[in-house]
């Protein structure tokens, strides 16, 4: 080997057709830290690390066989001391004296290799980040898709709900009208005048009343408040209504009226204990000839009897527990007398919830001389004035009776 090649600034090696080392230059020997004698005749793969030996077999040998040359192949040498030296190899095969030999140059790339390693690491990180991004994107797309589906479903449900709500409102409105139709009209007779006010908390009320002329001098006035409000309470009021509107005009005794209503509630909930509703009720049988009132108050707020002359007030307080509570309760009416000009106020607790018990009584007292039509307006006004917007309203109902 000429001196120029021997000391060239790169490793140089000549291989036999089998890949055995024929010649090796000084530069490569010093890179490896070997002597010429150690390497001559040995396979070039012994200079390589194990992975490089495999790569050599898989790529270098076939490529050289086919192309007669290899360019820029990255392999690693392993020195006898165990150091790994990354190199770039170029190789050309040629015929010398009828035998194929391969000349290779080895170019150590320690620094470049480190740089490449860093690049590869960065590349891998970028790739993983990209994969993560793709994954996140896919998941996001899926989530968005799901969200859109759900939104569509929600819109659909909302529309159904809206339709259902409208239908329900229409139905409830109709039911409210039916409930109101069942209420009796005001009475204005020479001996008695009866006015009433009725307001449901929602479309339907748990309150119901009725006043009837029984004969030429007797009148029956009833006011009921079914526990709760809304549809279930309203249904019960209608059921009770159909009962008392037969009993009262027929002149049934007060105890009979209450007993019947009580049994009716018990029979309603005999099998459905959970649906059980009880009900407060007050029934007045007014005899205008004898100027007497027989009454039963089953757990209802006390009715007020206002005297026009003395300004005295008398309470028609509770005589019994509410109906529908305990089966077989005995109802015994009380009797009071009245004089001409006395005035009665019956109301449900929806009224006193706003005004308080102590508010109604002075209102009645202060306005004892004005017609009950006006008094009714004053009470309604008072109710509206005292209503808090945030307050949950109960059904409201009151009856005014002018005894003449």
């Amino acid at each position: 080997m000429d001196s120029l090649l021997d000391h060239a600034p790169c490793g140089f090696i000549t291989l036999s057709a089998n890949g055995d080392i024929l010649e090796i230059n000084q530069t490569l020997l010093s890179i490896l830290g070997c002597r010429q004698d150690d390497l001559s005749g040995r396979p070039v793969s012994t200079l390589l690390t194990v992975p490089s030996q495999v790569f050599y077999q898989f790529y270098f040998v076939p490529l050289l066989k086919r192309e007669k040359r290899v360019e820029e192949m990255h392999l690693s040498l392993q020195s006898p001391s165990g150091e790994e030296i990354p190199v770039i190899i170029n190789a050309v095969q040629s015929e010398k004296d009828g035998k194929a030999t391969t000349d290779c140059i080895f170019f150590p790339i320690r620094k470049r290799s480190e740089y490449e390693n860093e690049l590869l690491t960065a590349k891998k990180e970028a790739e993983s980040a990209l994969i993560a991004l793709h994954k996140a994107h896919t998941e996001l797309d899926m989530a968005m898709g799901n969200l859109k589906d759900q939104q569509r479903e929600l819109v659909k449900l909302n529309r159904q709900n809206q339709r259902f709500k409208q239908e329900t409102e229409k139905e409830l409105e109709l039911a409210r009208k039916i409930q109101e139709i069942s209420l009796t009209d005001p009475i204005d007779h020479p001996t008695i005048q009866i006015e009433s006010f009725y307001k449901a908390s929602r479309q339907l009320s748990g309150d119901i009343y009725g006043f009837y002329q029984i004969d030429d001098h007797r009148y029956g006035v009833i006011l009921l408040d079914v526990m709760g409000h809304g549809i279930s309470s309203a249904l019960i009021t209608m059921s009770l209504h159909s009962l008392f509107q037969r009993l009262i005009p027929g002149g049934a005794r007060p105890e009979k009226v209450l007993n019947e209503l009580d049994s009716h509630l018990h029979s309603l909930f005999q099998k459905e204990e959970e649906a059980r509703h009880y009900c407060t009720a007050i029934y007045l049988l007014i005899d205008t000839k004898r100027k007497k009132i027989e009454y039963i108050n089953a757990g209802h707020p006390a009715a007020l009897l206002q005297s026009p002359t003395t300004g005295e007030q008398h309470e028609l307080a509770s005589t019994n527990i509410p109906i529908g509570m305990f089966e077989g309760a005995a109802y015994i009416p009380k009797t009071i007398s009245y004089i001409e000009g006395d005035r009665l106020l019956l109301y449900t607790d929806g009224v006193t919830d706003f005004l308080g018990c102590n508010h109604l009584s002075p209102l009645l007292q202060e306005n004892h001389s004005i017609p009950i039509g006006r008094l009714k307006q004053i009470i309604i006004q008072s109710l509206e004035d005292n209503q808090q917007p945030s307050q949950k309203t109960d059904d409201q109902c009151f009856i005014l009776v002018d005894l003449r």
Partner: protein
Amino acid sequence: MDQDIIVRNNVKVFGNGDKAMMFAPGFGCDQTVWKTVAEAFKDDYRVVLFDYVGSGNSDLQAYDFIRYNTLEGYAQDVLDVCAALDLEQAVFVGHSVSSMIGMIASLRQPQYFSTLVMVGPSPCYLNDPPEYLGGFEREQLQGLLELMEKNYIGWATMFAATVLNNSSRPALKEELEERFCSTDPLIARQFAEATFFSDNRKDLPRVTVPTLILQCSDDIIAPVSAGEYLHQHLSKSVFKQMEATGHCPHMSHPEETIQLIRQYLNETAVGVLA
């Protein structure tokens, strides 16, 4: 004939025999590596060459990262080609990992194969001491994967440069069009992982097809210990130690490869007749 498979796997058929002889390239190679050896059998056999999907002139669009994650996917390629050509009792010659791919295919559809010829085979590349020596530690195989990565850019430019610099040798350009090795780094890496981290030892006792094992000398990739292990566990196997060194005797020592295959086929044929 399923034309889709023929195109997908770049299947080439030539030769004059009644019996088919199928050559499967090893890791990282395509069918051109069999050129010399396959030529030698074309007078007696119907020679079948193909590329696995992802290498050579196969249809890269057909590459499926899930299917080709294990050797089973490559074995399916072999079976697809057998089905497309309606092969029966073919001689299957597989280099390197294709020996195992052919073996897996034979376990699934034995009727396609009369003989397996394994050139430089290994049932498992990793050492599993004390009873098995595959030749490699895991980190050495990882090192190989890293080298593949580092050479990828080199590969691409090397081929381009070769074509440009050899305009005086137009034949070379044509030859290059049949890509020698898969150039897609992702596919190459997946094939490498499927190849080098596979362990097919437990399948060996189930193999029914007679097998010729061609063991190279000084083969770092498939050492003698791997070939001998195969011979011990394949019941109908013949083991031949080759003079050829390295891992690619079909390229480096085609004459010896041809001679040993022919000798085995003649002997087994005589055996069948007798």
